[in-house]
């Protein structure tokens, strides 16, 4: 079915997409909660900042990431000094690019769900002895699960499809940063590469179909968002 090289690309794509989404999910949730429930100065600015990777072309995002993570860039220098690592040309860099691109989609979806959570249920939890944090974890969070799932699906799909920022940031290194879209792009650059493009695109679509089916199943099991009297 799949060639060895294709398998390697699929594995890498899943690794990059999975790690990106898993790593950025807590941040996305925190940001969504801030935007949904708190009023503070600079709120709209934060919101705009989060939307940035959506508005600015991916290539620019990739370029800005490169500036930040380059050996003499602000984050790159820190990583080098403290951890002695570099994400350039590494799958970790690809995951960072994917995470940045997925973030706005995840934040919006989660925020939408949090805004829909009835605060009176949180009140009820508080009178029953739950601290603010505990009420959040046991009421707000589970009731926002539909948004978390939707955000995760969107983010994962976006991460699977991420191309422009990734190739600009960490280029196209087989086994490290050559994810499905980048392999597709390579094929697309070659005259007569259409067959390979369609094949690889079909693999992407199959992956996302699996992700969707899983998320729908999860949603059905967890998504008891029915209303109380």
């Amino acid at each position: 079915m799949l060639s060895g090289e294709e398998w390697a690309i699929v594995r890498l794509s899943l690794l990059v997409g999975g790690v990106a989404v898993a790593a950025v999910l807590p941040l996305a949730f925190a940001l969504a909660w801030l935007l949904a429930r708190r009023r503070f100065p600079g709120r709209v600015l934060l919101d705009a900042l989060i939307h940035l990777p959506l508005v600015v072309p991916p290539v620019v995002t990739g370029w800005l990431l490169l500036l930040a993570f380059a050996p003499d860039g602000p984050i790159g220098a820190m990583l080098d000094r403290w951890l002695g690592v570099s994400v350039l040309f590494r799958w970790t860099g690809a995951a960072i690019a994917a995470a940045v691109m997925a973030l706005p989609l995840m934040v919006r979806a989660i925020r939408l769900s949090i805004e829909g959570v009835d605060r009176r249920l949180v009140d009820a939890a508080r009178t029953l002895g739950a601290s603010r944090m505990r009420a959040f974890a046991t009421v707000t969070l589970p009731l926002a699960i539909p948004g978390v799932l939707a955000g995760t699906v969107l983010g994962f799909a976006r991460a699977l499809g991420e191309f422009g920022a990734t190739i600009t940031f960490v280029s196209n290194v087989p086994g490290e940063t050559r994810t499905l879209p980048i392999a597709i792009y390579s094929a697309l650059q070659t005259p007569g590469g259409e067959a390979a493009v369609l094949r690889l695109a079909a693999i992407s679509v199959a992956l996302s179909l699996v992700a969707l089916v899983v998320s729908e199943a999860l949603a059905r099991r967890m998504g008891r968002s029915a209303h109380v009297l």
Partner: protein
Amino acid sequence: AQRPPLVLAAASMQEALEDAAGAYAARGKARPVLSFAASSALARQIVAGAPADLFVSADEAWMDAVEARRLLAPGSRATLAGNRLVVIAPRATRLGALRRARDIVAALGDGRLAMADPASVPAGRYGRAALQRLGAWPALADRIAAAENVRAALALVERGAAPLGIVYATDAQASRRVRVVGRFPPASHPPIRYPVARIAASRNPEAEGFRCFLLSPAGRAILRRHGFAVP
């Protein structure tokens, strides 16, 4: 009034062709409309039947692909310009001039060599051919940072993400952040040529005018000024 001709041109020709279009307009002609993108995207648009007038490709392969479908006006294909491949390093590099291809391997240290994707992008394919011919490819094959295009490869070197890169002489000339540390002998790779041709379906009389202007001494002077080699 007649609409000006639409020219689909490889992104790496952007500055030179903008200048040429300006010069052409200064002669009292309608300024051609220029659309820059990757040659692959432009060639596909032409193949799909999009109504364009001229095509300037970054390599012969994509022009061949269009020609194979009989979409070029017969006899209109010509070589517009040529280019050279160079090795660059960040401006502040302590490297001396690289004389042999194997010097690249040594100079790279544990870094990567930035170049346009050697599997697909024209500049990358030329670079690979040269490295193969000079015997350095086996040592470098898995040390490549394959960028989306030459400009992205250039950016990797400018930012110090890669200690060395292979780009066109035109790109190297335009960047203040890098220095040329080596040049590939022209014989080490297939000739780098930017072909131009008129699209068969074009009905715009000005298209041929602009094509001729580009190939005229005045047009070639502009290209030369931007660092291109002209026949």
